[in-house]
């Protein structure tokens, strides 16, 4: 099994006719993902390498029966694209767009939460989600992932997701699903959402979690793990040496005052029984050791 996406996921790429949308949309299809349509207003009736393009999400969903969308449009259009996908009734929206204004993000997050509880948003500003061998939505390189589980991965950082996948695959430890939840202040899906799904997935036996400085999502995840999570968790928090008051690349990765430090997150996770690693390499090795001992 896997979480959120599998071999039955049918994806529409919003922005398929753009440079990024085309590049990643076609790569996702080549991986085996059912990419059934694209949507670009004004380009309905055309196609991208055989994938039909529609003017609206509503039309695309009605005709193809898609249940997921991949938003790859510029920041100023991203909010509307996410809401259009939700209104069209898809249950999953993956938004990779970076640099979306925080007000737009807070608005569509809350609108989805209020009016479209059946739609899960992953991102924005994330690498996407891959269930190896089944479905890849986003920009993760499928070639580094290894199907078959037993490890689930959830991460705020793109490159560290790839790093984590690679550490495991190299030692022949596969993954059920890898979710990049993104580095923005208001992510649509958080650690707890992923942990709850991994807990319910019988094929996921352990979870590798990668957090970073900023916010308090890791602390909340720690509390959730202590009370509701039965499987082993290994965690790494990036930014242990980051100075306060500087955004470390991601909009969400900033220490303000004493809030959001790596040490506070690591302490909370350790107290919740999580195996906390000092760096990604050690985290990978810890996970390999845990899996080997099963």
């Amino acid at each position, binding site marked *: 099994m896997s979480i959120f996406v599998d071999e039955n996921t049918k994806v529409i790429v919003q922005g398929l006719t753009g440079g990024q949308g085309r590049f990643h949309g076609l*790569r996702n299809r080549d991986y085996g993902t059912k990419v059934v349509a694209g949507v670009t207003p004004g380009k309905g009736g055309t196609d991208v390498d055989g994938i039909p393009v529609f003017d609206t999400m509503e039309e695309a969903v009605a005709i193809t029966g898609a249940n997921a969308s991949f938003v790859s449009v510029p*920041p*100023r259009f991203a909010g509307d694209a996410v809401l259009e996908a939700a209104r069209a009734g898809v249950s999953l929206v993956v938004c990779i767009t970076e*640099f*979306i*204004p*925080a*007000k737009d993000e*807070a*608005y569509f*997050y*809350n*609108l989805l*939460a*209020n009016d479209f509880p059946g739609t899960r948003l992953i991102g924005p500003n994330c690498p996407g989600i891959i269930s190896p061998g089944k479905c890849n939505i986003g*920009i*993760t*390189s499928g*070639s*580094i992932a290894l199907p078959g589980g037993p490890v689930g991965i959830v*991460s*705020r*950082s*793109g*490159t*560290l*997701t*790839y*790093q984590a996948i*690679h550490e495991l695959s190299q030692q022949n430890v596969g993954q059920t699903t890898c979710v990049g939840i993104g*580095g923005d*202040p*208001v992510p649509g899906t958080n650690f707890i959402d992923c942990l709850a799904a991994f807990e319910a997935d019988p094929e996921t036996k352990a979870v590798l979690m*990668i957090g*970073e*400085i900023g*916010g*308090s*999502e890791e602390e*909340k995840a720690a509390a959730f793990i202590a009370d509701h999570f039965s499987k082993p968790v290994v965690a*790494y928090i*990036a*930014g*242990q*040496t*980051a*100075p306060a008051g*500087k955004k*470390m*690349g*991601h*909009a*969400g*990765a900033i220490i303000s*005052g004493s809030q959001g430090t790596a040490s506070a997150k690591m302490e909370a996770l350790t107290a919740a029984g999580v195996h906390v690693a*000092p*760096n*990604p*390499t050690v985290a990978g090795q810890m996970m390999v050791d845990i899996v080997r001992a099963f």
Partner: protein
Amino acid sequence: MDLFEYQGKQFFAQYGIATSPGGVADTVDEAVAQADAAGYPAVIKAQVQVGGRGKAGGIKIANNADEARQYASAILGMDIKGHLVKRVWVERSSDIKKEYYASYTLDRGAKKYLLMLSAQGGVEIEEVAKTDPDAIVYRHIDPTKGISRAEIEDAVAAAKIDQEARSGVADVLELLYDAFLKGDADLAEINPLILNTDGKVHALDAKVSLDDNAAYRHSEWADWQATVEYDGREKLAKSKGLNYIGLDGTVGIIANGAGLAMSTLDVVNQVGGSAANFLDLGGGASADTMSAALEVINTDDKVQAVLVNIFGGIVRCDEVAKGIIEALKRVELRAPIVIRLDGTNAELAREILAEQGSDSVIVEPTMLQAAKRAVELANRGA
């Protein structure tokens, strides 16, 4: 983008929030002229983006032109916690009866906007939160619904704002929400928000931080953007589209991805070194991007070794290796360079790099080994 106080007051003015009349000055003569125009007693305030400027002597009240000259001379050019005062704000001193606190921000945890209001203003709100937490009223706001006048009035009453100031404070809170929302501020804070002896309420200070991602819809930010200060390297990096933050160590860092770059800083620290910078190349790692990154790092005299940490997913490592070799031809590095490439086609990439044959280009297979080697070289060079 964090605004200076005077810019914050300009921002407030755009949304109709009252402040004390005044003006900016870059020289002592200008400051005296501004004080004469505002009338005495006049307040001269250092424009720096750091807390505690009052305690540091950066805020003075002048009762006449001679005092204005004396204080402006002292404040202009002053160093406040490493911030050089280049500009002062001069305004008419207010007859303060009471000081309050008001702000709107995004509460990341709750994923909603947050109004904070307190009858105890004029001091650090963090201090109030510690010493008298009940003195702060918190109201979460659903971004899809906003905040109504009735909800604002309720918050004002709950914060025990003085009766005579309640309607004035509520007016400011309505305008401030508008400014926060339409002005795309991450933070819009007034501390203190004052009740004057004449019964009027107005903003005596302005702390505003704007969301850079929203800059495309605010052409009116241009003047403020022009005053953002970067050190020379940060400016150079920005002009080349790199995400760079200067630090104090001796190992120059180049990585692809914010997370990996942060992680590289961590690992360098764990093996006994210190990073000279944070540098995220972004998704690509072409010869052009790599040259730009090396060029920026090369201008940092503290750097004794460079560590390149790349994970190739979609970007193939062999292409990155070729890019690095090309970049090394364009930029003459002062320090040795240690390269770690992992991911797609990593073996091939290492062969390509090994063939170029320079002693000062070292290839290591893992992040940890590469960091150790770079730190060793940096410590030797220092």
